[in-house]
Each structure stands twice: as C-alpha cells, then as structure tokens.
C-alpha cells in the first residue's frame, strides 16, 4: 500500500495591511505561518492608507519568505506549489504578493495558484476541522459581509450580501466617533461585554425575505445619537453605546444566518473573516445553532486565523491544486474579484 504523497504549498497574502507567508501541508496542517502587521503604521492615519500599505509590503517580502521556509524546516525543493491572494483587496498591496509569488514560481519552476481572498477566509475552517459539504459560511470582515453557500471545496455562491457598508467597516466608523483607535472591533467588542443595549438602534432588513444586510442606517443612527448628545452636552455611556451597536449588528447577522441554515440545511457552518474574532458574535451564533432541530457542525476558526493570513490561502490553494487549477505568469491582481452570486442575487 502506498500512501498518497504529501502536498506542501507556500502561500502569500498581502491584500490589505498584513504581509503573510505560510507553508501548509495537505491543505490542513500549518507547518509555518508568518504575519507581519502594519497596524502601528496605519494607526497614525486612522485607517489603512493604500500607498503606505504597499510600501510596507515590499519591505518584508523576501525576509518573510525565508522565515516561512525556515520555520517549516523545509526548502524550495520540498514544495509542490506556490499560492497567492490575487483579489479582492487593495490593488497596490495585492501586486506585491502577486509579483513575489510569480517570481518565486519562475525561479523554482513550481506551479502557481491564484486564490480568492474570501475563499481563503472561509477555508481557514479547513485548518481547524474537517468540512463536510454542503456547507454554509458567514463571512464578515472590514470589506465584506456575505452568506456563502459551498457545494464542494471549489464551488461557492453568494446567497446574501451587504447592500452598503460591511460590518467591519461600520465598527471602524463608529469607533472613530467613540475615539477608539483603528482597528476598533476588538475594543468595541470588549466594551459591549460590559454594557447594556439601552439605545435600541434599528435592525435593518430583518423583516425582509432575503439574506442581504445593511449597516449604513445603523451607523447613521449611532452617529446621530452621539452628535445630538454632544450638542446638548450630555455624556452618554460608551459601554452602553458599544453594547447597543453590537447587539444591533449581531441580531441581524445571527437571524439571517439562522434562516439560511434552516433553508439550506448545510452539514457544516463556518464563520470567517476578521469580525469572526468578535466574541459576542461567536457566542450568539453558537447559542442560536444549539436551538436548531437540524444542527450543522460548527467551525469557528481560532482568532489567529480570523484576520488576514497566508495559512488560509494555502488551505484554499490545496483544493485548487487537487483540482488542477493553476495560474500562469500573466496572473494579475484583481482588486474587485468576487465569488459568483447565486441566481436569485443576479436580478
């Protein structure tokens, strides 16, 4: 009996403000993961400045390549492919990873795999537990809020999407009003644990018969409340504000997710994206799913794999590798790359 040969992929991720490399074995095992974060730099500006982000990515790209190989105790000749996020994201930032991965592929003769960043976020779950299909993912981050139906490891379709702001974006915007340093999610989540939902902000689109989200109304209601209090020199409790905001976000995310789980009856439920690190959201989804008659397996990736990282890209790349889906040297960054939309989303 001959065992199947192991597949090792070196992966790159540089779509926003993290430069990351990883070596992933068989799409499941993290042999190394290096993440260089630029948060300290962008905190100077209150948010990610694309040109600054691109400049930082190129500073570290060769070093973190060597570190990923060293940490995995591996060499180029032990690898089977090189993978890279090619979109969506900031175009200049993406181009560092794409240029580096293509150059590495040319220099080593290893095949190249282009990975969709969102597919990567969802596939962080594959590094955590076995996914059985069909699966449903709630993908929440600074740029995206989507419900994704996964028929198999390669065929995904979006069944619900945000009509305006992404959830993570709303966190950062109200964070600015509360005087919380970028990125605001972690602090607001912590405050929310200590406060009460006393403001009863609107829950957008809850009544509607679809899986779409909207957070701009909530954001405006929040900002108006804060400004009004300012004008009449009234001091509002920041922790209650945070709790009220977070409750409104989570109510909408949880209810839409539960409806989708009831309709599609997936075997696995996955929470993905930066906002997947939110404790309030994790707790609520777990509790809601326990109430369901048909309970899917729940995969909540560890916090380290919720933010942008190359491990998730290596996991997704393995599935593409197995399917023989390779890129060539013309691979380019695609800042507005999107997973396909389900038929009902297209009209």
């Amino acid at each position, binding site marked *: 009996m001959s065992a199947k040969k192991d597949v090792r992929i070196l992966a790159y991720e540089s779509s926003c403000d993290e430069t990351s490399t990883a070596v992933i074995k068989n799409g499941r095992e993290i042999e190394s993961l290096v993440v260089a*974060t630029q948060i300290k730099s962008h905190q100077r500006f209150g948010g990610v400045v694309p040109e600054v982000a*691109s400049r930082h990515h190129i500073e570290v790209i060769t070093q973190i390549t060597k570190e990923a190989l060293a940490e995995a105790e591996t060499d*180029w000749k032990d690898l089977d492919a090189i993978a890279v996020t090619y979109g969506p994201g900031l175009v*200049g930032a993406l181009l560092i990873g794409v240029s580096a991965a293509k150059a590495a592929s*040319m*220099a080593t003769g290893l095949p190249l795999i282009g990975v969709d960043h969102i597919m990567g976020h969802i596939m962080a779950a594959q590094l955590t537990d076995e996914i059985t299909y069909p699966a449903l993912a709630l993908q929440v981050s600074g740029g995206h809020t989507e419900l994704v139906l996964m028929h198999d490891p390669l065929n995904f379709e979006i069944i619900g999407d945000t009509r305006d702001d992404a959830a993570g974006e709303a966190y950062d915007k109200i964070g600015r009003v509360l005087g919380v340093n970028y990125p605001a999610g972690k602090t607001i989540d912590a405050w929310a644990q200590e406060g009460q939902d006393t403001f009863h902000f609107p829950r957008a689109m809850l009544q509607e018969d679809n899986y779409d989200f909207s957070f701009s109304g909530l954001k405006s209601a929040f900002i108006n409340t804060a400004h009004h209090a300012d004008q009449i020199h009234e001091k509002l409790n920041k922790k209650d504000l945070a709790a009220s905001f977070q409750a409104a976000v989570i109510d909408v995310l949880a209810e839409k997710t539960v409806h989708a789980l009831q309709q599609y009856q997936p075997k696995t439920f996955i929470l993905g994206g930066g906002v997947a690190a939110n404790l309030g959201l994790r707790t609520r989804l777990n509790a809601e799913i326990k109430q369901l008659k048909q309970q899917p397996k729940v995969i909540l990736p560890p916090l380290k794999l919720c933010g942008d990282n190359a491990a998730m890209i290596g996991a997704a790349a393995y599935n593409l590798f197995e399917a023989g889906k390779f890129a060539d040297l*013309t691979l380019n960054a695609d800042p507005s790359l999107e997973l396909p939309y389900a038929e009902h989303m297209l009209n």
Partner: protein
Amino acid sequence: MKILSISTATSNLSVALTEDQTTLFSAEETDRRNHSEHLDPLIDKLLHQAGWQLTDINRFAVALGPGSYTGLRIGVTTVKMFASILHKDLVGLSTLEILADNFAQSDALIVSALDARNDNFFAGAYIMKNGQPVNVMADGHYHLDKLLAGIEKAAAEQGKTKVILAGTGLIERAEAIKTALPALELTFAEGDDNQVHASHLGKLALSAQTIDPDQALPRYLRRTQAEMDWHRKTGKPFGQDSDYVEEV
C-alpha cells in the same frame, strides 16, 4: 557575466539580457499600464530566445526609481525574489541615470526628468565621464521653478552651455523652459531617447555595486501624502519604516 535587466518605472516596460557589455536580447512594450501581467512572460520569452534558464543569470538589475510607485514595486519585488531565491547578485540603479545613459556619447549636461504632475518632476542632472553618467544635480522631486534653477546652477558649475532634456513632461513646457534659461543651448530629446531602456541598465549594471535583496527598496524620492500630512500635524519624526511593521 549574464545580466537580466528590467525597468518597470515608466509606462515603457523594458527587459534586456546582457552578457558582459553586449546586449544579446531586449524587448520593450510601450504604453503599458499593466506591467504585472506582461513582465514575467516577457522575461520568459527573452530567456527562451537566448536559450538561457533563469538560473543561468549571474546578476539581476532593476530601475529602482524614481517612477510610477506601483510600477517600481512590481519590478523591484520581482528581482528581489529572483536574487534572494537563486542567491545571485542584485543591483539597482537610478531610473534617471539609466535615462541619461541614452546620451553616453554626449558632452552636454543631461537633464533626466519624469513628469510628476502639477508642474512637478522627478529629475536629476548628469554629465558623462568615460562614457558613464555622473550625477551632478541630485535626483529629487522638484517643482519646475526649482528644477530650472538647479539646471542653471549645474550647467554653470560644470561649465556646460549645451543641455539635453530627456524624459516626460518637459517638451510640453518647452517655451517656459527656453524663456527661463536664455543663456543655455537647449535640446529636447526625441522619440526613443525619452524612454528608459533596460539595455542601458544592463550596461551600467556590470560595474554597479550589489545590494542585499532583503534591503532593496524602490527609491520613491517622495513620502506619501498621508505621511507628510501626519508629520505636519503632529510634528513627529517620520521614523524608520521598520518601526511600523511587526511580526505577530
């Protein structure tokens, strides 16, 4: 010595294979916006023509800047990776020096400039010594007025009255430039002489100093607007780039 040279600094994508002083193969794609898509296939094509492997290359050369920020990063990232993985030499040269080398036979003052919008230029001035460009007005980001004053000063210091202006954006301001520099004999470069050619980079790369691939960065010659605004507002020093990126 086999050298692969590339310039992605301007809209002219240029790649050359040089052995010692001789350009064996070179290719250019003018007016390209998408260097990312075209660079690697072009390198591949030239290597194929030469019958070389990438591993045969002894030295990688790149136009470090100034130029299009995104374009520079595509080229610099590519050679950083090549040199780092294959353990080969890396050299990076000023885009403006490579441009000046179009006039290696000239005894004029060569002004290399790239249009940086709103009457600003990335520019430098060079004279030729033994067929090699020597910088006499530092590469920098200049407003047109400052640039013209700099040209006048460099010409006086070098005892030159003949001045060649090459690159982008200058010919459009020819009248203003002639009016401001009445004592100088100005020639505006034509056609191909305004382009950055990797074949010239290949020639200069032979004697250039090698750099550590990990330390190789584009020479932007300009901070980002966000950083300048932040600095003006807070009065804080810019600091080292490494102050801002941390492994977690």
